[in-house]
């Protein structure tokens, strides 16, 4: 026995030391935090400003004062705003708002439905077209026809503009290494930027209204279009490109005849993702004046009317399903490069002609007859749906109290409060030191350096206390997300059946706007910090599960066969082989989880989570706090960058080849 235990003692001394160090550090931290509790926490009451936030407010005011005369506005911001405003208005006039001298848009509801059905049929299949028509009709039946149309129009406008910029830039980054190097940092930053952060600054330069909502949406969705287009171009196999070149193509011919056609599937996937990103942002952009379904969602959240919020949220979900399914079906259709047989093509041509005629008839009708122009008011189930949602929530909170109030209490008392008292209720210098040390142990010296710089910047901003509140919620939500996500991820990684079962749910969960999740959570948990946490968990679980599942699945079969033939139990196989081998995926999943959670936790400011998100929202509505709101947004950004850097350095350190 003694002989056997020796190798175990020699193995991996470094690893043991690192986890021990962390444990000791936490212990010291807890003790010190208890001793120094409540001192130098830099807490700032909500209505108060610091010198810095006052200054930020003054800067905002002076920018606002410059809007008509400043050169930057006159020749840059205002022309852009006017152009985009004009573009958005044209699209809205088609389906959402009355045109010039008419009382209806260019298309009445029947016309809109027919056009949507026709387009979906043209890019995918008849079944999908029928489903799309039903989904849009349901939006009208929820009493939200005009808002739905506005959301659709805003999404469409933002998508067209995003693709017009994103696809050419993506092609450029696909062809040129230098271009890729130039855009990559911007794309990376855009990916970790929480959506709430840039609403206020954009509104400052482009006013509140559809234009700045569209620009904000573009900021969010252009990087996705760029990334996937570049990825598609770069993913084209080498040999056709070489073959094309060897036959004497010009760069243009190569792009048009070889690279673009072969990348078309990935580019369409990019369009799908761009559409979904735009939709989810258009909803949240209601905060800076985007017309559409975001408005009723925000209003319902503010007055805590779960039933009405649910109706508006449901309409968003229906539109999301419609857009996602029809663009995904278009990808499916592109799967093979072999076109359909002649008979199929003839049938399809016939279908398109019939569909076209029906669509034209519907358009004409919708412009002539009142019943086809205005969505029928008799068809309105919104009260019923709102009532059903309310009663369901009441039933759950009364009968499943242990799940709602109970869960909330366990997490709040058991995890959230203790962590909050360590992070935000102890002196700032203690917290800064400790986080820096953790960053040092996890990611190394460079990680520690960046961490300390960012933390001190947050301290300097004056919103240290609120940042730590948000940070606490982010950590708690991420821990819980990882706990659930790893279990589910291991499950789908090991079982193809579980994968088949969960995949559609995960896909659906990923396409829904984060905002929409807040409504049921608010119903279940009331206005509280836990509501923000629960929303963060629900929102980020799909991505975590997917990454973990992928990592588990990619563990080489030989490794598993070797362990199995050595007599491992299932549990040993998971804990000793699959999870360690998938370590990099676990770290990546944690990183993604943190970023996703942070984005949602700040939105939780709407439902009583406090912290930076609340300050951002407050800054948007109270002029005397606008500076504080802007600084809070900036602090979210700093926090996000810090989290991302620590995670990235930890990943890099753990995947570096060992010497």
């Amino acid at each position, binding site marked *: 026995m003694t002989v056997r235990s020796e190798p175990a003692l020699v193995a991996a001394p470094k690893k043991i030391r690192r986890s021990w160090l962390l444990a000791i550090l936490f212990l010291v931290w807890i003790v010190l935090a208890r001793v120094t509790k409540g001192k130098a926490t830099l807490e700032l009451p909500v209505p108060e400003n610091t010198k810095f936030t006052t200054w930020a407010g003054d800067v905002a005011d002076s920018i606002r004062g410059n809007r008509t005369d400043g050169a930057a506005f006159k020749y840059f911001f205002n022309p852009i705003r006017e152009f985009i405003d004009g573009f958005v208005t044209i699209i809205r006039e088609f389906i959402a708002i009355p045109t010039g001298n008419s009382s209806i848009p260019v298309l009445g509801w029947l016309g809109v439905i027919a056009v949507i059905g026709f387009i979906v049929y043209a890019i995918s299949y008849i079944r999908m077209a029928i489903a799309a028509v039903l989904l849009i009709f349901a939006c009208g039946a929820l009493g939200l026809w005009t808002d739905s149309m506005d959301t659709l129009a805003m999404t469409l406008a933002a998508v067209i503009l995003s693709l017009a910029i994103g696809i050419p830039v993506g092609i450029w980054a696909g062809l040129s290494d230098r271009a890729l190097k130039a855009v990559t940092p911007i794309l990376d930053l855009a990916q970790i930027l929480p959506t709430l952060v840039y609403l206020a600054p954009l509104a400052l330069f482009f006013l509140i209204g559809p234009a700045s909502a569209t620009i904000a949406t573009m900021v969010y969705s252009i990087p996705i279009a760029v990334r996937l287009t570049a990825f598609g171009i770069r993913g084209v*196999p080498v040999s056709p490109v*070489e073959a094309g070149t060897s*036959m004497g*193509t010009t760069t243009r011919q190569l792009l048009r*005849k070889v690279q673009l056609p*072969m990348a078309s599937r990935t580019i369409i996937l990019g369009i799908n993702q761009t559409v979904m990103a735009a939709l989810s942002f258009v909803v949240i952009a209601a905060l800076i004046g985007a017309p559409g379904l975001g408005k009723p969602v925000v209003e319902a959240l503010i007055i805590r009317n779960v039933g009405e919020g649910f109706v508006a949220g449901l309409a968003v979900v229906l539109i999301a399903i419609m857009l996602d399914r029809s663009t995904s079906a278009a990808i499916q259709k592109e799967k093979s*490069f072999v076109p359909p047989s002649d008979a199929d093509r003839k049938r399809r041509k016939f279908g398109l002609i019939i569909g076209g005629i029906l669509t034209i008839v519907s358009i004409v009708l919708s412009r002539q007859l009142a019943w086809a122009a205005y969505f029928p008011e008799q068809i309105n189930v919104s009260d019923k749906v709102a009532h059903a949602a309310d009663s369901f929530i009441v039933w759950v909170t009364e009968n499943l109290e242990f799940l709602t109030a109970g869960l909330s209490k366990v997490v709040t008392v058991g995890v959230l409060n203790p962590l909050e008292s360590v992070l935000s209720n102890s002196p700032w210098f203690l917290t800064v030191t400790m986080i820096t040390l953790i960053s040092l142990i996890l990611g190394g010296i460079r990680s520690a350096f960046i961490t300390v710089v960012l933390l001190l910047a947050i301290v300097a901003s004056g919103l240290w206390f609120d940042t730590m509140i948000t940070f606490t919620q982010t950590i708690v939500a991420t821990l819980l997300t990882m706990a659930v996500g790893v279990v589910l991820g291991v499950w789908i990684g090991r079982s193809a059946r579980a994968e088949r079962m969960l995949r559609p749910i995960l896909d659906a969960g990923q396409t829904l706007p984060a905002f929409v999740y807040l409504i049921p959570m608010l119903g279940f948990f009331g206005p509280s910090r836990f509501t923000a946490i629960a929303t963060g968990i629900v929102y980020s679980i799909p991505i975590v599960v997917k990454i973990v599942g992928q990592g588990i699945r990619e563990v080489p079969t030989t490794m598993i066969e070797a362990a199995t033939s050595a007599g491992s139990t299932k549990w040993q196989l998971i804990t000793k082989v699959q999870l360690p081998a998938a370590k990099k995926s676990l770290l990546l999943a944690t990183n993604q989880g943190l970023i996703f959670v942070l984005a949602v936790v700040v939105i939780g400011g709407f439902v009583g989570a406090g912290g930076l998100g609340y300050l951002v929202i407050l800054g948007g509505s109270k002029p005397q706090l606008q500076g504080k709101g802007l600084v809070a947004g900036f602090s979210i950004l700093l926090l996000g960058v810090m989290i991302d850097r620590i995670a990235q350095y930890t990943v890099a350190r753990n995947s570096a080849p060992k010497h």
Partner: protein
Amino acid sequence: MSDNTSAISVKNLWQVFGPNPEKIVGSPDASLPRAELREKTGNTAAVRDVSFDVAPGEVFVVMGLSGSGKSTLVRCLTRLIEPTAGSVVMHGEDVLKATDARLRELRRTQFSMVFQNFGLLPHRKVIDNIAFALEVNGVSKEKRHARANEVIELVGLQGFAQAYPEQLSGGMQQRVGLARALAVDPEVLFLDEPFSALDPLIRRDMQTEVMRLHKELGKTMVFITHDLAEALKVGNRIAIMRDGAVVQMGTAEELIAHPADDYVADFTRDVPKSHVLTVRTIARPLAANETATDRTIQAGTIIRDATAAVLEANGPVAVLDGTNLVGYIKSRDILQVVGGGS
């Protein structure tokens, strides 16, 4: 061979990857082994000082293991990769000095390439794949389809013109690759391991096919392979590459009879010598106690093909080069080669 009579003349060709490739060529570092060069300068020499000439109508094989630089070499010849130094003269014109426009012109008309992974365009029909080079050169649809149909006949793809690549087997796909390369009626054909991705049986068919096409069309070919049997089957001359340099160049017989070093010897060890060597290589003077029969055999005959005749004879057979006597062989000499004795 001089530049005037060669189809291709390659001189002192270098391809160096790394931070400062130009500085390596011509410096003392250039002669370092590959690993040392990388250690010392951070550069990797993929092709080192390669020179050779290919006669018109010849099939010139470049052979080597993976990483020997053979694929880089062929890409340098067509400038899919820009060589660091040297010259590649085809029909009196240095390809490396051609402008972009001229290079495109050359690629569209003078030479074409067949790829290991076929490199077909999955979104185009077979006929449009084959007509691609003509299309990018601005040939009208009618004309290029007419030409494509001719080549389709030539490579035995009748009936598949309207199919898409993914509907074809690997062997058929590479026929499309061949047809595509032949469509422009090029002077020179570069084949980069064209059959490595195919099953052995199909590979053999395709080798025969290429030899048939070569006989019919007489194109100059540069054929890259890692398979010695393939090299021996299709090649007039073979260059063996290692670490970016040519170690030996010559006919199959020269390589096997007189390997330049252990590396080449190792390569050729498993080749049945009787299938490659001619009787010339084993002809010897008549021993004192022997009397020649009246039978004769030509010196260029492969030993395998001479076996029956020599074994039937009751003594030494005269080996003639034309009418000149080279020497004599008898059954024991043949059996020694066939039996694998050295």
